[in-house]
């Protein structure tokens, strides 16, 4: 038997990959992380909003990767009326190109080796067994051997498929996204704006996330099922032309968010999936940074335990711990997503109206959702239906 170069190879250096690599190394494994792009953290395909509580469990908040600190949401109904609930515990709009870099540095400080411009094009097999990955490193073919492979290769993940897991995201669950970073505009640096309704994003939402007083990420996502009729880029251009005509566009990106339940399989033989690759995104909000990091942490810890024990079968524990920690919640959130996806403009207007009648201290997201249910008995039925289904 040939020697292994590493205990664990992590494919992809996003938040999930760097966190998995970091915790695998802390657990005692020899880890290599491979990233296909030239830079870790760039290009940024993200609205960049996270909660303080979520991020602080992994890294101390640092002004160098925080573009704005936010304390409120503003939910804007199709008829223009809005309600501004508090964001419990506050949150941030990140500078992800710095944030992702810092996460990779944290991994490196635990001994993780990192190679960029390293594209993984297949798994490496010997006698039918997976023994590492096949890569193109700066256009040269290199095979690298490892006992375990952690796939953190994002929404475009293919590693899981090569290992025999079906990770295809159903078009109903994939959010097709477009975003611009606009500058020279006026925004409230303390507030995350969400626009709802058929005109801006049927079944989804449009966000304006501030990065300081004069710059914001303006983007939207909608189910591919809706995007069939009209694409994300068309919706975005229409909104921006209406709301922010003739301003500076600093970035312009496309993206996809798998707003599904966790993939049915996230462990197979000696391969595990973390982050977007495992569909570990909150299906209601589309937020996948923190949940992907939680998946990465659990995956990295379990993989290191498997190495220390010399027992690959131990990887199954990852699936159990993920579902106990967050997966079960995502299953419920997925059903809520389906109920919300059916709201029409009138429902959103009514929800906003009834929320405005709430006393200010009850205007939290939870409070609004509860009051929406209370004032819309038909919605209780809708939600009950999806919960029972």
């Amino acid at each position, binding site marked *: 038997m040939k020697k292994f170069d590493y205990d664990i190879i992590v494919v992809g250096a996003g938040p999930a990959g760097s966190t998995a690599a970091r915790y695998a190394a802390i657990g005692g494994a020899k880890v290599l992380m491979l990233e*296909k792009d030239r830079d870790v953290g760039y290009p940024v395909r993200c609205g960049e909003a996270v909660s303080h509580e979520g991020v602080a469990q992994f890294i101390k908040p640092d002004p160098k990767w925080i573009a704005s600190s936010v304390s409120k949401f503003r939910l804007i109904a199709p008829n223009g009326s809005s309600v501004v609930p508090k964001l419990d515990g506050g949150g941030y709009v990140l500078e992800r190109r710095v944030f992702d870099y810092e996460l990779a540095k944290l991994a490196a400080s635990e001994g993780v080796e990192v190679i960029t411009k390293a594209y993984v094009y297949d798994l490496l097999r010997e006698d039918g067994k997976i023994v590492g990955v096949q890569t193109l490193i700066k256009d040269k073919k290199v095979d690298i051997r490892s006992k375990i492979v952690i796939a953190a290769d994002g*929404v475009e993940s293919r590693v899981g498929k090569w290992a025999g897991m079906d990770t295809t995201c159903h*078009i109903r669950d994939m959010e*097709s*996204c477009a975003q611009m970073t606009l500058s020279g505009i006026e925004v409230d640096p303390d507030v995350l704006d969400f626009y709802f309704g058929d005109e801006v994003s049927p079944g989804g939402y449009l966000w304006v996330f501030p990065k300081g007083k004069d710059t914001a990420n303006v983007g939207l996502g909608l189910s591919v099922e809706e995007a069939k009729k009209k694409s994300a880029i068309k919706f975005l251009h229409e909104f921006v032309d209406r709301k922010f005509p003739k301003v500076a566009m600093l970035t312009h990106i*496309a993206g*996809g968010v798998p707003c599904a339940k966790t993939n049915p399989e996230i462990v197979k033989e000696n391969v595990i999936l973390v982050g977007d690759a495992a569909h570990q995104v909150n299906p209601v909000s589309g937020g996948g940074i923190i949940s992907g990091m939680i998946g990465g942490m659990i995956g990295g810890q379990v993989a290191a335990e498997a190495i220390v024990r010399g027992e690959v079968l131990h990887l199954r524990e990852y699936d159990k711990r993920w579902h106990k920690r967050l997966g079960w919640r995502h299953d419920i959130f997925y059903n809520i997503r389906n109920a919300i996806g059916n709201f029409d403009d009138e429902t959103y207007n009514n929800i906003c109206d009834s929320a405005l009648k709430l006393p200010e201290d009850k205007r939290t997201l939870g409070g609004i959702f509860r009051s929406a249910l209370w004032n819309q008995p038909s919605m209780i039925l809708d939600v009950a239906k999806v919960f029972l289904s």
Partner: protein
Amino acid sequence: MPQPHLMIHIVPGKCDYCGCCVGVCPEDAIELMESKIALIEDRCTNCRKCVWACPWEVIEFHRDGVDHLPKQIPQMINEAVKF
């Protein structure tokens, strides 16, 4: 140029390399690198999911590809609608 049987065409130079199309492709028929995208032609089934998913309208579906389909297919369609 797309293969005769292919109705899917990724317009060169228009892609943002975001991976949304790869995420919905059931056949693992799209290869995506840092700034290169390619169809793995013998795997593509012309299902169109990537066309709908692409936020930037980079992937086109050419109906005229139907003319180049293997002859058995139109024949099968004829058979399929018989009672």
